């Protein structure tokens, strides 16, 4: 799966938890969930659970630690898809 395909699948998940903003409209690999998208930290875990469901993967706590940006999330998703 390409980075672009992954971002397209991530966008609706992120939109559920992020307030409307310009940063959300311009979602890209460098977007930071908390700093740029103003997502509440208690909702990060919802994003991770939704990602697990959407991609059919399991994200362990060590991988979850890094998932504060779109770029880091793409890396974790790719890694977990390769392990399948």
């Amino acid at each position, binding site marked *: 799966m390409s980075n672009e395909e992954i971002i397209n699948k991530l966008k609706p998940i992120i939109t559920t938890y992020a307030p409307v903003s310009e940063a959300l409209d311009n979602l890209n690999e460098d977007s930071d969930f908390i700093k740029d998208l103003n997502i*509440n*930290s*208690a*909702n*990060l*875990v*919802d994003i*991770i*659970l939704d990602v*697990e469901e959407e991609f059919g993967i399991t994200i362990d*706590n060590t991988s*979850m*630690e*890094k*998932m*504060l940006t779109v770029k880091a999330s793409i890396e974790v998703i790719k890694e977990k898809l390769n392990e399948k």
Partner: protein
Amino acid sequence: MIGNDVVDLDLARHQSNWRRKGYLDKIYTSEEQLLIAAAAHPDQMLWLLWSMKESAYKIHNRKTGIRNFAPTALACKLISLDGEIKGAVTVDHQTYFTKSEFSLTYVHTIASASVNKLLDIAIKIYSQPNHPEDYKSLAADCVSHHGKYLALVYG
């Protein structure tokens, strides 16, 4: 260094469905999950523990310069629940002491590596629409904002 965290309990109820499958395992240790399960008010216990983790993380993150999302690595212990809610959060062999207070609609926690320091922390909590116009000018040592509430602490 001090940390704080406020949770707007009304907003939290709408924003997070902690009963969804897998949610608790990603945030809470098994010991913390037992505290939640055994609590008379599980929602209150859950957000109390969350605010303890967040307030400790805010100190630890500034101290180490490491930004991550590892809530289960911040292990909470409750020391007293009578009157004042006191606890401790341990992460990477470092312990932070906490003190929390509930109102009907929020829980607020302050944290410090020194238990005595907790006594000296001044707390200012604003509820919408009474937020200060420019809270940055109020030069707080730590700031937390959630839903209707803005909490500033000085220590």
